[in-house]
């Protein structure tokens, strides 16, 4: 049975004029724009990114400024999300927390993408022995529950935001290695690769200029989805006290610090949790939309 995705591409292919403007990526972008959930995700992420970039400049109050006369204030026009046990404005702290979440997410996923994709390309393209060694090592890393491995790595390296990035990055290396290897195996015997080899191109050149661009779309999708997981992982690590250290506000730490007061002052628990939830959901929606847009054959 033909999926609606295929039908729409065929229609586009016949409607659209031929030429360089009608590229694969442009088609994918157009499909993404029509994906409602992905656009909702993108909108949420836009807000979070703005909060992350402009952080301290747009907070209504000093995020670390204490006001003991105004402790546990309920959400109001003055304090949109109320105040915490030190009288700090929760909304301001959530704005500043966006920066931490995004930074940890982006750096951790960059580590995983570069190392994982590199290993995966090597495994898929080189000899059987190299492939076996790399992929069995990836199987080993994959056998650990992600959070447990991250906690164990942090136990060794020490607490702190930098080590959290490294730990989360290492945890997601095998996923990228598997995806990149799978994609390489799918194309390594294609004519354009054989042609490049015949023309005398070296392995690294072939990998970077011919293989990599062709495995990019599954990797882009995985980057987006991994960002969701990385932000959840950072929040969990900070919640347990391993990640961000005081006085930097982070959503995970706000939840662990305020835990004792949730029953009386529910807003202290609700808003940081919602911030994590919406950011993660934004990346998940966008990732799913990207998958549909970049690989319409998979769409159902």
């Amino acid at each position, binding site marked *: *049975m033909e999926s609606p995705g295929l039908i729409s591409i065929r229609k586009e292919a016949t409607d659209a004029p031929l030429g360089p403007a009608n590229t694969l990526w442009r088609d994918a972008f157009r499909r993404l724009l029509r994906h409602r*959930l992905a656009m909702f995700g993108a909108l949420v992420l836009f807000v979070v990114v703005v909060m992350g970039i402009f952080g301290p400049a747009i907070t209504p109050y000093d995020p670390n400024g204490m006001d003991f006369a105004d402790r546990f204030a309920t959400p109001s026009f003055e304090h949109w999300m109320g105040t915490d046990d030190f009288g700090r404005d929760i909304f301001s702290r959530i704005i500043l927390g966006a920066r931490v979440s995004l930074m940890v997410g982006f750096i951790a996923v960059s580590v995983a993408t570069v190392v994982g994709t590199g290993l995966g390309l090597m495994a898929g393209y080189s000899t059987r022995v190299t492939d076996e060694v790399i992929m*069995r*090592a990836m*199987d*080993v*890393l*994959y*056998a*650990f*529950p*992600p*959070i*447990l*491995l991250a*906690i*164990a*790595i*942090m*136990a*060794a*390296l*020490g607490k702190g935001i930098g080590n959290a990035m490294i730990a989360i990055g290492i945890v997601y290396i095998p996923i990228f290695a598997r995806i990149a290897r799978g994609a390489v195996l799918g194309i390594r015997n294609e004519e354009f690769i054989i042609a490049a080899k015949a023309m005398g191109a070296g392995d690294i050149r072939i990998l970077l200029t011919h293989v990599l661009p062709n495995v990019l779309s599954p990797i882009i999708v995985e980057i987006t989805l991994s960002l*969701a997981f990385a932000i*959840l992982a950072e*929040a*969990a690590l900070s*919640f*347990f006290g*391993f990640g961000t250290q005081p006085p930097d506000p982070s959503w*995970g730490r706000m*939840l662990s610090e305020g*835990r004792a007061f*949730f*029953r009386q002052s*529910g807003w202290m*628990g609700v808003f940081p*949790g919602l911030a*994590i*939830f*919406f950011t*993660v*959901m934004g990346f*998940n*929606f966008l990732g*799913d939309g990207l998958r549909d847009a970049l690989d319409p054959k998979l769409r*159902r």
Partner: protein
Amino acid sequence: MNYQYVVQRLLLALVVVLGITFVVFMIMQIVPGDPARVILGPYASEESVAGLRARLGLDRPFLEQYLVWLSKAVRGDFGQSLLNSQDIAPQLRGRIGPSFELAMVSLVIGLVIAFPIGIISALKPGSAIDIIATIFSQIGVSVPSFWMGILLIIVFSLNLDLLPPSGYTPIWEDAGDWLAHIILPAFTAGFVSASIQTRFIRSAMLDVLNANYVQTARAKGLTERTVIMRHALRNALINIVTIIGLQITALFSGIVIVEVVFSWPGLGRLAFNAVEERDYPLLQGTVLVIAIMVTMVNLFVDLLYFLLDPRIEYA
């Protein structure tokens, strides 16, 4: 039957377990500086640091350290906890049961939620219920489980006073109390797992619903119920079993978090305590047992898959 697959799968599991021991051993090796100094703190005397170094075997060459540690670990000797100087193995044994119970109940709760939603949304793709199911599964994977756990404690334990907020009772002591304690943590871990499984079950069902044999079954005039239960679901189950296997690692990840939030006396909480106390030998033992448990469950699921679908070959 293709027994070569079984042999290769067993060999792979052995290689992975060996690799796991190496990674776990490396935990102490990557501690920056001297692990003995890190454990004892900056004010400990040189003698006590040197003593601990010798006790942990850190003064020996790397490979010798690993082989000694491995040969002991294989015999179930994980050394002594630095904190209470007690043998680690008995502490681990006492924690496996509660963790395993929590994992299984979470898995069952996950499947009970995921099966009906996944099947119904596959039967009516694009319908309102399908869209709601998609959004549900997206929400489920986006909720931080520690946050959900806390909210459940506040609502069901503190405000409504229906269920205990934390703790554990062994099932053979008081089954009712065991159930009361496990509901909230298992629901927290199971909810996340349900949202992932819903998508896979939907997709596995969609695959078989479009297959020729399902159309043949319909053409024969069988009732829709028979077509779905006897022809479609049975075949979809093969894929679903594999997916449950893949979920095991993620499920255990969730359980580590849930155990800490609900003070559940399992391996995850023990690992967490070991990190807090810088008890590296205890951490190594705990992480090793969890990783091997996950590998064994994955092995079991793969072999089960082989039994369900003998066409499978080692890729």
